[in-house]
């Protein structure tokens, strides 16, 4: 118990964005990086993500987006969490053009992981985001 407690990450896909292979790969990468993944899977809403983050006392939220909704939905999730009073960083994975990254960063998204990101990078990105929670 002297070891640092594992980082707890909620992973989800929003709405009708229906391809979850990437999210499953990321779940496995984070697990093998020693993290605890609360997997929500497909067809989630900002409400269900907030409920999960609150009840699970999660440290990071990871959203996978492959349907070009990131500029709309990314900030939406960040704001919804903030409005709920939850100070929990959001990481977005999936298809995000480079030129959108500054916009997402400005909107408060803690990190963006593109296709082909190696496991080390995925784990490091989530770990860096979790540092905000003192982990």
């Amino acid at each position, binding site marked *: *118990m002297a070891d640092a*407690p*594992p980082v707890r990450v909620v992973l989800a896909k929003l709405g009708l964005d229906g391809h979850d292979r990437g999210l499953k790969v990321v*779940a*496995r990468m*984070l*697990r*093998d*990086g*020693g*993290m*605890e*993944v*609360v*997997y*929500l*899977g497909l*067809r*989630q809403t900002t*409400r*269900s993500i907030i*409920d*999960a983050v*609150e*009840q*699970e*006392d999660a440290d990071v939220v990871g959203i996978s987006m492959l349907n070009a909704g990131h500029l709309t939905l990314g900030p939406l999730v960040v704001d919804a969490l903030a409005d709920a*009073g*939850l*100070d929990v960083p959001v990481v977005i994975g999936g298809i995000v053009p480079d030129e959108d990254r500054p916009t997402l960063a400005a909107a408060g998204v803690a990190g963006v992981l593109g296709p082909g990101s190696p496991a080390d990078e995925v784990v490091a990105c989530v770990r860096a985001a979790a540092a905000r929670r*003192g982990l």
Partner: protein
Amino acid sequence: MADRGVPELVAAARGGELRATARLLTLVERGGDPADRVAEATHRHVGNAHVIGLTGPPGSGKSTLTAAWTTQLAADGRRPAVLAVDPSSPLTGGAILGDRVRMAGATAAGVFIRSMATRGHAGGLALAVPGMVRVLDIAGFDPVIVETVGVGQVEVDVTAATDTAVVVVTPGMGDAVQANKAGLLEVADLFAVNKSDRPDAADVRRDLELMLDLSKLTGHGRHDAVARPTIVSTVATTGRGVAELAEAVDAHFVELTDAGLLEARRQVRRRAEVRSHLEHLVLTASAAAVEMAFAAASRADLPDEPPGATARRLAERLLGDPGS
């Protein structure tokens, strides 16, 4: 809010604040001093929740059944909470906790769900679960359902250490039912034969009845049972039998209370918890000494004797046996 102390968190949790409850669960799960402080602040307020253990083999439909059941309880105006335990990877310490995937409807219905990983060391689960159940209890949740994968002795023990132990079995397990007789099935107060729309569901029921007949014959059942375990047939995906399951579980609680066995079971539970803590304290204290003795012995060549003999000499030195 991150800086609130344990007393403030406990007060907020008792006032119905979910975030405070979730934070307290984290503190208990991490163990150490904060967990002790939470235990100190909660132990006088507990005892209102019906604590239910639910276990069964992987893939038997535990999460789906729990979701259907708790959704119904919430609709009836109750405040159920679920503590869903999944195994950690022994290699990396990480875990994928997937119960919420099947419980999305329950979340929407207002059921409080907390996923929990076993975090490696076997003793940890036995320490953390009772403390986390206490937190959910003082936060006003009732019933509190502890869902575990029925694969290891610790999980079986955790299930047994509740007011009502529900074991989920399914058709097609065949020999698994036989193999598990000695562990999983023995602790059950109630069986749910899930996926009972499958053709061989009647066989499972018959196997269970036979096992219970034999238990009666040998007198080797749960000694603190009120009655022969009820068997309920369910189809979690359609909701069939879920109301009967809920009724049977509630009835078991009433029977326990009426027979004066509820308090007896809770006493046994508290004693078992003392033992878990004692084991943890002693093991933690002795771990360093073992490490040192072993490190010293590792530097020398192994003597020409059985490994057990070497260990016995080391142990005698550690425990200060003057005879050696």
